[in-house]
């Protein structure tokens, strides 16, 4: 046996996924196989029917007990919306019509319980999976989950909820129940093949503050039990068989994040200001209220992007005005006197969608402001809720996915209508609430000057802008290399947006991922950006960079970058600059 030599010889493999919950985990893998249970079709004798039925009754009772336990646990840890998932599963277990027909089939067809359960529930599962209603398709997973729970109990398999030692859980997918149950053990992190930022795994792991990377495609086939891995919940990576050097690097990265947090006491109350006195706003992108405390610790100048569509996650309907108002009020009050920019629901594309629409090309389809302008009632309700939360005058409203001036005017009309309604009702709001638009469609970028005449600020959403400008779907592995933040066209385009926007006295910010890339900070500063809105965890790092350079110097560097012709040149140059100025900030 030379396992040690083997693992030393194994090569390091880096898998890319979607960062779902922040943090770095280093440890052994605990692999959970969640394949469809293997079901045997077996005929039984009439005298065996009684035994078969009592076996099934016991399995249902055990499943019921398990689910009750999960529900109790969930009620303590999760919000109402997520609890509903388990309630629905319990109700299915109590569906007497369903189980009467299952018992009936066991008696009449003389088949084993496993087969009949699998077949009968499978019928519903298939219909739901084929539904055009996204919500129903999601619920199909709950149906499958219940079925597998009963089958597992029929086969008397033990629930895997106890781990030996602390591990990184790797699985094809984790249901909310799995993630929750497993979290009672020493879970270092979660890594799954499928799922997005709004998957059950992502939601639960964020709530539990455990690092998670989802959408790793085939991670559950690539890794084995007890393999050593590094899970990077910041960058969305899993490193299999990490070299000693990588482990060291990631331990340092983890350490660095911890240190930053500690060192922040000093940096926190200092402005994001260059050595020669150019002050920018360094604010945070926020999805959940739970992050507010963290971003305050991080010393943010406010919220540059509140993604209101996260209120829709796990919801069946758009939340009421009252419910939204409660959320927005918390944001405004917690951050006061700092600014909070609330982006109206940005649904569609790869984001939450409340109703089923099949589109050939959702990224070029019904999304963002296009959806809201088609749903006046819902849009007005949201605008009213935002306005009502604006009484302290620190709330701004921002419209996503703008591609024409008409859309801006149309959206502003709705805002006026909402104000008018509130005024008539005698409800207070900030009559001078500031309005901004996202610049994420090239047409809006070209029209930046005209856009700026309509609003107070422009905020560049680089993720979509780059996709649309370069015609690259960054989720598509075949072409994702062509998604280049530092493509000279992107940089020149950004310069144009900033220049044209400022010409009309709008301030110009950026809330896309590029704003939080330390390699881009000096360049963006030099372009004249007024505001950076970034994911909270990079905030101190970006602030440190801004505070360590002169604006003049940044402008000089940017001028040079603007003459370059390839993304490679730009990156190499910026890396050189960073290495010289900030040897302690590792750049990927």
């Amino acid at each position, binding site marked *: 046996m030379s396992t040690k030599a083997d693992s030393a010889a194994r090569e390091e493999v880096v898998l890319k996924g979607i960062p779902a919950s922040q943090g770095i985990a280093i440890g052994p893998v605990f692999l959970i196989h969640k394949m469809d249970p293997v079901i045997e079709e077996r005929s039984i004798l009439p005298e065996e029917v009684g035994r078969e039925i009592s076996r099934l009754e016991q399995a249902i009772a055990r499943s019921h007990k398990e689910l009750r336990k999960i529900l109790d646990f969930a009620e303590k840890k999760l919000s109402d919306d997520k609890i*509903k998932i388990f*309630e*629905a599963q319990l*109700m*299915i277990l*109590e*569906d*007497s*019509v*369903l189980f009467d027909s299952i018992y009936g089939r066991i008696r009449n067809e003389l088949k084993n319980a496993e087969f009949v359960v699998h077949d009968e*529930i499978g019928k*519903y599962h298939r*219909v*739901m999976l084929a*539904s*055009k*209603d996204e*919500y*129903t398709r999601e*619920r199909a997973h709950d*149906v499958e989950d219940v079925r597998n729970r009963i089958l597992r109990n029929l086969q008397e398999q033990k629930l895997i909820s106890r781990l030996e030692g602390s591990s990184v859980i790797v699985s094809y997918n984790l249901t909310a129940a799995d993630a929750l149950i497993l979290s009672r053990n020493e879970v270092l992190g979660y890594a799954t093949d499928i799922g997005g930022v709004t998957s059950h795994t992502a939601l639960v792991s964020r709530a539990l503050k455990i690092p998670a990377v989802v959408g790793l495609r085939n991670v559950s086939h690539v890794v084995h039990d007890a393999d050593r891995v590094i899970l990077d919940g910041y960058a969305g990576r899993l490193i299999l068989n990490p070299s000693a050097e990588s482990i060291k690097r990631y331990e340092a990265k983890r350490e660095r994040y911890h240190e930053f947090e500690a060192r922040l006491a000093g940096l926190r109350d200092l402005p994001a200001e260059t050595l020669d006195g150019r002050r920018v706003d360094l604010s945070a992108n926020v999805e959940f209220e739970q992050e507010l405390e963290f971003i305050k610790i991080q010393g943010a100048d406010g919220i540059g992007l509140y993604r209101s569509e996260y209120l829709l996650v796990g919801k*069946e*309907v*758009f939340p*009421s005005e009252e419910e939204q108002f409660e959320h927005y009020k918390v944001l405004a009050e917690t951050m006061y006197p700092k600014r909070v920019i609330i982006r109206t629901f940005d649904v569609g594309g790869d984001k939450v969608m409340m*109703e*089923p629409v099949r589109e050939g090309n959702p990224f070029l389809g019904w999304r963002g402001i296009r959806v809201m302008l088609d749903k006046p009632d819902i849009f007005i309700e949201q605008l009213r809720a935002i306005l009502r939360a604006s009484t302290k005058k620190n709330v701004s409203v921002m419209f996503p996915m703008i591609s024409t001036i008409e859309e801006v005017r149309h959206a502003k009309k709705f805002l006026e209508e909402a104000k008018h309604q509130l005024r008539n009702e005698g409800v207070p709001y900030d009559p001078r609430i500031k309005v901004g638009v996202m610049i994420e469609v090239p047409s809006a970028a070209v029209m930046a000057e005209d856009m700026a005449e309509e609003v107070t600020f422009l905020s560049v959403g680089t993720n979509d802008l780059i996709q649309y400008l370069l015609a690259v779907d960054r989720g598509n592995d075949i072409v994702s290399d062509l998604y280049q933040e530092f493509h000279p066209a992107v940089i020149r385009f950004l310069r144009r947006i900033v220049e044209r926007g400022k010409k009309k006295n709008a301030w110009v910010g950026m809330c896309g991922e590029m704003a939080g890339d330390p390699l881009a900070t000096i360049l963006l500063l030099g372009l004249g950006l007024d505001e950076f809105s970034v994911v909270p965890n990079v905030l101190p790092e970006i602030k440190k960079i801004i505070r360590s350079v002169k604006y003049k110097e940044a402008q000089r560097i940017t001028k040079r970058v603007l003459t370059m012709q390839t993304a490679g040149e730009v990156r190499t140059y910026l890396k050189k600059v960073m290495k010289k100025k900030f040897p302690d900030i590792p750049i990927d």
Partner: protein
Amino acid sequence: MSSCMIQREVVVKNRAGLHTRPAASLVKLAAKFKSDFFIDKDGFEINGKSIIGVMTLAAEQGSKLALRFTGEDEEQAATAVCELIERGFDEA
């Protein structure tokens, strides 16, 4: 079997349609009556007393449903169920 049978047509009014919670109220209400209760949507029929069945319907806002009640208290069952759907499941 009596020849009696009540058929009603309703339109789902509430925003969420027959999603989890409305589906649960519907099934719970139907269970209070002895009559059989079936729901047909676009030719696909399920037992209205089965939560998994109702979930399968994926009846969104605006869906037309044909309801069928048979049994001794079919009159009362039909009235109660139709009222619940008409009221939009008492959703806010």
